[in-house]
Each structure stands twice: as structure tokens, then as C-alpha cells.
């Protein structure tokens, strides 16, 4: 019974074409056995060494709730809220999105995306933060070097609210 499910996964994982210089971020939301489960709010961004935000990649929240009520809990993404969320006008096109179910989610950002095209070469961290209603909160960071055309493949694992967090860039050389 399990095999077909596994076989199905790659098609779910790679929804967009992934080419040289593109950035692929993988966010795993673990399946949790808890009495009351709500999909987590998740933010992912690229941070500079001084912790300032170089680019917001995504924020998944209850974006469709009436009267923007879903924004009430954005402050629970405490780090993201402090580093950039509170200064942004929401929702943000191409960044805001609905919450997602447990599983692995791959996001592809094209090399031509202004967030990447305008990213100066240097040291960065991919930061992913998850916060769950009546649940926990977790932040996972993956350091990476950007801009020399060299392939990048790195990952880290969360312990509770996040699973595998991956970052991948194909070489342009």
C-alpha cells in the first residue's frame, strides 16, 4: 500500500522546472500526532550575516480568512515578524500563500526572480520558521554562499515543528 504513495511523491515535489542558477528550497512539515492539529504558519527568508532580511521567500498563513483575520497570528512567527513581517504590507504577491499540509514542499525561485537577480554575492542563511496554533514554534537555518555560480546543496533538520529543510542551486558554470 505504501509504495504507490512514495511513487507519487516526486511529482508533488517538483512542480516547477529547475534550471541552472535557480534556487530550490525544500520545506518539510512533519505529520504530528497531537489532539488538536492545525497547519503551521511558515515563513522562509534569506538572511544576511547581520540578520537583516535580504529576501522574503514565502509566508504561509490563513491568508483567505475573512477580514484579514488570519494576520492576527503572524506575530507568532516571532523572528520573521520582528525581522521583517511587521514592516510589510500584507499579503505580499508571490510571498504570501495558504498554509500547507504535512509533507515535503519544494519551492523553485527562478534565477531571473528579482529576489535572486538582485541578491549580491556573499554569505547568507536560509531561515525557515514554523509556528502552529496551540502547538510549538521552531526555526531552522541553513548557511550558504551565493553568487559564484558554484552548485549548492545543503540541508538541516528541525526537531519538532519542521522536518528536512533543503537548499539547492544548480551550477551555472
Amino acid at each position: 500500500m505504501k509504495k504507490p504513495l512514495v511513487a507519487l511523491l516526486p511529482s508533488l515535489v517538483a512542480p516547477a522546472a529547475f534550471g541552472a542558477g535557480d534556487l530550490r528550497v525544500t520545506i518539510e512539515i512533519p505529520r504530528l500526532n497531537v489532539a488538536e492539529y492545525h497547519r503551521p504558519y511558515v515563513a522562509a527568508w534569506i538572511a544576511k550575516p547581520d540578520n537583516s532580511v535580504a529576501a522574503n521567500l514565502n509566508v504561509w498563513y490563513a491568508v483567505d480568512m475573512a477580514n484579514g483575520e488570519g494576520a492576527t497570528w503572524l506575530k507568532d512567527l516571532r523572528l520573521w515578524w520582528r525581522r521583517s513581517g511587521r514592516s510589510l504590507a500584507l499579503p505580499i504577491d508571490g510571498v504570501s500563500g495558504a498554509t500547507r499540509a504535512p509533507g515535503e514542499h519544494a519551492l523553485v525561485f527562478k534565477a531571473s526572480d528579482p529576489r535572486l537577480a538582485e541578491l549580491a554575492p556573499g554569505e547568507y542563511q536560509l531561515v525557515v520558521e514554523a509556528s502552529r496554533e496551540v502547538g510549538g514554534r521552531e526555526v531552522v537555518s541553513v548557511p550558504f554562499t551565493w553568487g559564484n555560480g558554484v552548485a549548492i546543496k545543503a540541508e538541516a533538520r528541525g526537531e519538532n515543528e519542521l522536518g528536512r529543510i533543503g537548499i539547492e542551486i544548480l551550477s551555472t558554470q
Partner: protein
Amino acid sequence: MNTRLFKIATFVALSCIGATLAHAHRVWILPSMTVLSGTDQWVSVEAAVSNNLFFPNHRPVNLAQVQVTAPDGSPVELKNATGGQIRSSFELHLEKQGTYVISLRPGGRGGPGGPGGPGGQQGSLMGTWEENGKVQRWRGTPETLVSENMAAKPGFKLRSSGGRRVFAFVTCGAPTTENLKPTGKDLELEFITHPTDLVAGEPSTFRVLLDGKPVAGAEVAIVRGDDRFRNDAGEITLHTDAEGLVKIDWPVAGRYWMEVTASVLDELHGVPHEKSFVYIATLEALPL
């Protein structure tokens, strides 16, 4: 036996007036949250005079002394305000994005910081002198100070309270500073670090100002809430530096009660006079 004990207790209590009365009964304003996101948000606020932080167990505050300003400085109406037996409460509708300031102003009989209220006695003078090796005490006004010729008493000294102001801060969206700007009057804080942007493990810096000027050596005491679940309240006492700055490291995330005290020495009708001011704020340090 009992009479003597009572006398000793009375003496200790009297000698503490002014210096530590504020510690016996702590005044606080406690918002349900200090950092909010979204629009159309509400917070509930409790305010009380109590011995434990932040549990009402003594007296309410006078709601007439509560002032709330919106991020643009306009007044905010207290919603569902209730003056209870041991606490006061109200709610605030945060219709604008930015920082709201909730304060308890001195004044009003029976209110904290006001005449007849705990720790206040604003405008009234307390005098001491020594006669026959015993400390003598006097209470009065600038008028009775003259009419009773108190200046003739040997070593006569005066103390008075410049009032006690109590604050709390709530931010919806990005923090703003419009209504946080010092007015140049009484004891105030200049927030180098925004009061709703406090994080455990990151030092926060405030400047203590008296009548707009930095105060060196002002005492800044912080106590984390839930003290009734600890044997040692763990009060941290700091002092401002030469520029009036104090740097606070919040040991852990939580709600903190902060009390700043400063005094000025001058003369009143030729008598040395120490006027002390108290600034209290409830602050929330978040985990990062």
C-alpha cells in the same frame, strides 16, 4: 510586649516611607499582549496595586487616572472598563497600526501616586530632625513648614514625592515612537530600545531623564512576574551611567515590572529638600 513590638514595627514602617513603600505595594498595568499583528485587534488590560506580580491581591487603580494614547497621540477610549475591588480592567480596540501608550497619571485622591494614595503624597512634605538623640517626624505643607517654623529644628530635612507614573506599551504592527517622545517634564524614559521590541538575550538600553536631563545613578529595578512561585523574587537592581543610560539583559523571556527611582536635592525655605520621582513600566521580553 505586644505594644513594644508594635512600636518597633511602626518605627520601621515609618522609616521606610518614601524609600521603599513602592516595594510593599507594586502598581502595575498589564496588557494581555504587547506585540500584535493584523488589523482590528483588541487587548485586555488589568491594572492593580498588589504585592505579587502580576496578581491582583490588594487594591484596584483609579480608572479615571488611566490615559491611553494611540500611535498618532490621540486619546483612546477604554472599552468595557470595570473598577473592581482588587483590580481594574478594561479593553482597548487597536484601530491604528503602531504603538499605544497606557499610563496611570498621578493625581486624584486615593489613587496611586496621588494624595492619600499609596506611595504618593504628592505635594505633602515629610520632615525629620533629631532631638534628644531621637529621630522626630513631621508632616505638612510648604505653608505649615513656615507657619510652624520647622526650619528652626536642629538638622531639619525634608522629603517629598514628585509622583509616580505607571506605564505599559502595546504595539500592533511595526513599533512607532510618536507618543513615546519625552516631554521634558518629570521622570521619563527615552527608549533607545523600543519598549515592545524586547528580547531575552538581547540587551535593551533606556535613558532616564528628569525634566529632560539625563540622570546619572538613578536606580532601575526589574522583577519578573510570577514571583509568588519563587522563594527569591530575583529582583535585579541596576544604576544609570553618567549619560543616564541603563542596559538591561532580560535573563529569560517573560513579563517584567520595572521601577525607576530618581531624586533631586534642593532647598525649600532654607531647608534641604529631597524630592523623589518614580517611573514604573510593565515590559515584556519575548523569546527569539
